[in-house]
């Protein structure tokens, strides 16, 4: 599996001409580029979303070289199977994705075209985080009339900090399976992550206490796990059905319902269009709150810890 690290010296012989040195550099650079799939001694990880890249980073440190397939401002449902994704999947030894059909619109093509048998579903190199947490909003019936629903339940599991504990444990086990030479390191990273994460959860829960029972509206059904964790009460969504664009008529209807069931704020993920929530916020005189949703979604959410720090700070600011 592992290939030897190639020692490539780009130093040119001083006695030779400069042109030769440049040519040699170019040659070596292109060789490196060509072989870059093999020269990394680190485990090649393809993370579908930034939160899983961040978690892998926590657990694997410098033992993994991680590629993140989607950006924090991209809708993870709608990504194209771009050539770059296929090329990165070709060299991956481990794929870390949410699963639960979140990536169904692009991942099957990437996997098929990658020609990489190590990361196909069912193999050790294929990891779906959603398999290790308790899923919410599992539909009792599957009908497209209900919009873009997912058979396995709502896939946005990363908004509840508690979900990272079982996922981290399973992911760490997988890292050990794929790279047993560094088992002790992964074990140590997991223990340290667990400890820090549990302390952080306690802190967040304490900070978020005023949010318990607070009524909110959400742009997309993207926050059931956050609501479940912090006790927020979602009274309406701006999308008429999951995945369908909010229409002016439907927003008017939501606004009408707000008279009877008032909400304290309207929340959206950073990648979602700000106009519908701002429209409602202006008319209902409530704040519109943008949540990072994943690592990098807001300037403050630089890692997993600051992602939840910022989420809670923004929600608390919305209360004022």
């Amino acid at each position: 599996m592992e290939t030897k690290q190639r020692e490539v010296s780009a130093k040119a012989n001083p006695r030779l001409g400069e042109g030769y040195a440049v040519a040699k550099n170019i040659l070596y650079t292109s060789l490196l580029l060509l072989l870059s799939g093999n020269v990394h001694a680190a485990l090649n990880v393809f993370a579908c979303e930034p939160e899983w890249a961040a978690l892998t980073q926590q657990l694997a440190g410098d033992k993994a070289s991680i590629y993140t397939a989607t950006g924090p401002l991209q809708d993870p449902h709608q990504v194209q199977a771009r050539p770059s994704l296929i090329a990165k999947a070709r060299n991956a030894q481990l794929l870390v994705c949410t699963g639960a059909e979140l990536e169904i619109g692009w991942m099957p093509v990437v996997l098929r075209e990658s020609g990489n048998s190590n990361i196909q579903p069912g193999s050790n190199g294929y990891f779906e985080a959603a398999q290790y947490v308790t899923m919410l909003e599992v539909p009792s019936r599957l009908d497209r009339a209900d919009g873009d629903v997912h058979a396995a339940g709502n896939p946005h599991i990363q908004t509840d900090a508690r979900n990272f504990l079982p996922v981290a444990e399973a992911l760490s086990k997988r890292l050990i399976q794929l790279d047993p030479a560094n088992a002790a390191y992964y074990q140590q990273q997991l223990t340290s992550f667990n400890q820090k994460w549990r302390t952080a959860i306690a802190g967040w829960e304490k900070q978020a206490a005023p949010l318990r029972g607070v009524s909110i509206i959400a742009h997309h059904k993207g926050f059931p796990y956050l609501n479940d964790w912090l006790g927020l009460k979602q009274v309406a969504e701006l999308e008429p059905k999951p995945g369908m664009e909010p229409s002016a008529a439907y927003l008017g209807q939501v606004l009408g319902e707000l008279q009877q069931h008032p909400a304290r704020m309207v929340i959206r993920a950073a990648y979602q269009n700000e106009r519908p929530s701002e429209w409602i916020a202006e008319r209902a005189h409530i704040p519109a709150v943008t949540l990072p949703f994943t690592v990098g979604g807001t300037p403050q959410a630089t890692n997993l810890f600051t992602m939840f720090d910022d989420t809670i700070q923004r929600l608390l600011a919305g209360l004022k």
Partner: protein
Amino acid sequence: MSRNIYWCTTVAVLLGNSFSALAADDADPQSVGAQIQQLKQNNKELEQRLQQVEITATQAQTRSSAAPSNVNSFNPAVAMILSGTYEQLQQDPAIPATGFAMNANNTGYVHGFSLQESELSISANIDPQFSGVGTFSLAPEGGINVENAYVQTSALGNGLNLKFGRFFSGLGYLNEQHSHVWDFADQPLVYRVLWDNQYADDGMQLKWLAPTDIFVEIGGEVGRGLNYPGTNQNKNGAGAGVLFAHIGDDIGIEQSWRAGVSLQQTRRIDAVSYNVPDLPGTPGGVSNSFSGDSRTVGLDFVWKYSPNGNIRERYLKVQSEYFRQYQNGTLTYDITGSITPGAYSNTQSGWYLQSVYQFMPTWRTGLRYDRLDPGTASVGASIAGDVISDYAYHPSRLTWMTDYNPSEFTRIRLQLAHDESRQGLTDNQVFVQYIMSLGAHGAHQY
């Protein structure tokens, strides 16, 4: 809500316990200590019980997903595309583009309301090594056409992908895409005349993806040569071959591109074309037959841009393809009359440039320009007085479309075209089209 009730009950029970305990032995300090211990114990047990109750309560509402998500739970993924059009055409769609009477001319246009092909697609993993896809198009007038039926495996690993059966060739960019994902209601003219809209063959394909950071893919196909520019050849060996290479990458998070080159080679045997115009000006044209080699080269390029890489909101796509087809062999002029054979070779070419802009989540608009070059044929002396070698006309077309996509599964399109593909027969065309997909959620190609 329910959590509050639990807490209230706990507090009430605890208070009750402690009062009765204190009332019983208020004199003995030792037993008070023991009672406090006992109370702490009780408290702990109650908390544990409370937690258990809460856990059961949440479990009642949810379910742990133990099974990996999959589009099929043993049953194959079934998807169906329903599509129909209303078309307003000023000219007869059977008239071919000027200079391309001996090429394919399958416009698919019908005046007025019409049901388009309904496409039924069934796919599943066959076993851990193979997966299979069958796509059947049901013609509105009846009859089933096997569009695609192939088996694929990536179990070879090392970036190798093997496919066999009937499939759309990997040449060009648009060729592999099914009609329901086309950005316009019809194919570019160059695809219509040089590939009969979409080149499919019965055979096998092997692709290799290089282990590089940027996307580099090379592939080859051998097949029967079933479709235009080939003719169904009932012989041993391969009737057609394709080679292609693609390269692509991202530029930052907002831009991506792919470029490719392709080569296709086949033979045409006794390929008969009807109503071909000739130099003597026979009314209704004549029927000719051609046998010879066909070689086509192509270049394709696509570039996509999206603010923040979020294609849900807005994106811009620019694509262009160029094909050049060289045919060399023997043409038999007027097979129902004079039957005069003669040498014939010609190079035809064509290109298109199109751009599609999604300016808001549910709306897109696009513009396409098409142009063909029928070439100047070199014609043997025996048929030089009959066969037109130079049409001196370049067919072209300008097309505009806009479509509305209320959900991922619905598309309603308006398309207007100014078609000058036939000399002297300008055609201003209007298309209104719906494309709906039901069933399994298919993943989209780049």
